[in-house]
């Protein structure tokens, strides 16, 4: 018999207590894993969105909070709109190669949230390098039809000639776009003017993506744009870094929550170990009487609490991983993405996270076991005789 088998036998003696203690550490570690991977995921999602836009500069109505920036880009929210004529004025600035307006609107298909994007067809097609797998791309800016992303087509089983209804108005699908790997795949596109009319938004746009001839001069272009109107103008990187900064403080908050759960789990282990040691003090005395040293008793109980950590770390990682996979899309309020199982949003297995979690869990548990194990090692052989 090895000492590990001995410890394993002991830990399984009180099945109920074993399970509840394990649940404690599992919940602690799972919340740690889930919160961490969800914030990681949100982070990469944000970066992805920013990349997708391919913008050097983004112009939108006055927005103070970077999170609203993000929400606007994702179509979850409409900011103070940018009047359409501004687009032309920006495009006219020397050195700006394109100013492409977007009107992003949250709508739904078959009760599933989808982003509808109002666009200028020709500018967009050129800027995004789109091609069409079936049907024909918008022929004019006032066309009462929609183009859909490839994933949208698969998800809702849509074909050319089907119609989508927005605000009680039917729109035939005239084009399905080739897969791009970006958020375009899960969106629906409509000519900007048609979208503005359908949704009663006059000549407003959500934001303008600006590209420039020379990124070194970005600062100059930004001040030129600011001169035109009181707008929120930033580079893609600025926007990204300010969102990431907020996500950073979000991380701290989430980790604090997970930390509290872990502390609770640690006390669960201490409690379990103290009870186990009290119950087994006679056995400890027997071991001591047969020549087992204090250090060996200490080791037995540290191994036992460490084993809780190992098992709890494994189950906690598994639970946290599953929860974050299921919950990440919900947190982004985008069921559609969840339903697609889009690899961009699925939380990926991370080996470093796995090993960190296991190591952390074993460490916390072993540390929790220190005091009980020390108490156990103080018991004398006389315990075997006294507690008959």
């Amino acid at each position, binding site marked *: *018999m*090895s*000492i590990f088998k*001995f410890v394993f*036998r*002991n830990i399984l*003696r009180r099945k109920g207590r074993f399970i509840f203690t394990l649940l404690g550490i599992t919940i602690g570690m799972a919340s740690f894993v889930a919160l961490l991977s969800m914030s990681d995921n949100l982070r990469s999602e944000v970066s992805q969105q920013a990349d997708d836009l391919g913008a050097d500069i983004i112009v939108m109505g006055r927005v103070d909070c970077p999170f609203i920036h993000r929400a606007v880009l994702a179509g979850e929210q409409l900011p103070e709109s940018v009047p359409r004529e501004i687009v032309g004025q920006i495009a006219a600035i020397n050195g700006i190669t394109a100013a492409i307006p977007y009107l992003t609107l949250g709508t739904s298909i078959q009760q599933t949230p989808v982003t509808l994007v109002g666009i200028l067809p020709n500018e967009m097609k050129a800027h995004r390098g789109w091609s069409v797998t079936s049907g024909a791309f918008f022929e004019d800016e006032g066309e009462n039809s929609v183009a859909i992303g490839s994933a949208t087509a698969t998800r809702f089983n849509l074909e050319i000639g089907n119609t989508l209804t927005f605000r009680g108005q039917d729109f035939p699908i005239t084009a399905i776009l080739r897969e791009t790997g970006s958020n375009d795949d899960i969106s629906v596109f409509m000519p900007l003017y048609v979208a503005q009319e359908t949704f009663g938004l006059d000549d407003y746009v959500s934001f303008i993506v600006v590209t420039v001839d020379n990124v070194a001069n970005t600062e100059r272009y930004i001040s030129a744009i600011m001169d035109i109107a009181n707008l929120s103008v930033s580079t893609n990187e600025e926007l990204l870094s300010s969102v990431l900064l907020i996500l950073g403080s979000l991380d701290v908050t989430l980790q604090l929550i997970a930390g509290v759960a872990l502390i609770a789990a640690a006390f669960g282990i201490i409690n379990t170990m103290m009870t186990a040691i009290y119950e087994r003090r*006679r*056995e400890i005395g*027997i*071991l*001591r*009487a*047969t*020549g*087992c*040293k*204090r*250090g*060996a008793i200490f080791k037995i109980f540290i191994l036992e609490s460490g084993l809780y950590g190992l098992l709890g770390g494994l189950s906690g990682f598994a639970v946290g991983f599953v929860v974050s996979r299921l919950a990440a899309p919900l947190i982004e309020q985008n069921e559609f993405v969840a339903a697609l199982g889009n690899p961009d949003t699925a939380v990926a297995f991370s080996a470093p996270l796995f090993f960190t979690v296991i190591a952390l869990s074993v460490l916390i548990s072993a540390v929790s076991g220190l005091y009980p194990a020390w108490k156990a090692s103080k018991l*004398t*052989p*006389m315990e*075997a*005789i006294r507690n*008959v």
Partner: protein
Amino acid sequence: MSDWIIRTENLEKTYGTKVKTHALKDVSLKIPRGSFSCIIGPSGHGKSTLLQLIGGLDKPTSGRVFIDNIDISSLNDNKLSEIRCEKIGFVFQSFNLLENLTASENIQTAMMFAGTSQKSANSRALELLDMVDLSDKSNSKPSELLGGQLQRVAIARSLANDPDILLMDEPTGNLDSQSEKDALEHIFNIHKTGKTIVVVTHSSDIAKQAELLFEIRDGRLMQPFRATP
């Protein structure tokens, strides 16, 4: 000079702080290697206390205990544990087996902490179980064994690290007469292999066999004690 494997000098033991029990008073004795000794006396007069001090389970209030001429009353806990592990085997009246382990595993625990390899601990356990006629019970838990069998497992365990000394505190106190006979036979056989055995007992069957008989009354060793050649 005789070879005294166990010696005590002026042993005193007082239990408790508020209410003091003076359990042993000035006990000095010598036990030769390979002998079979019994400690007898009325209940509550200090027999177990004496055995526990000799075996290093407890420390005397004053006086000294020598095992193989080592003063164990002055050893630190680690060294004392080593002595218990290597030189002394214990058998208790209440068997003191670990309930969640099999007979074989109970014997192996004693070796697990002595640094014996798993393989040899396993074969040693089987060998010892065979010696006490329990080879078929190696995988039985204590709850599946009878009193006499439990005590034989405990005897086998006490021999695990091949100690020179076996200390037994009323080993047959919880046994019926047939089981007692079986256990005694094993104990006598073990004595024949050269072990020094000290038994605390109320049983006249055991006392009859003793080469040395120590009588404890009211914490004192009665003089003269009988020494049978």
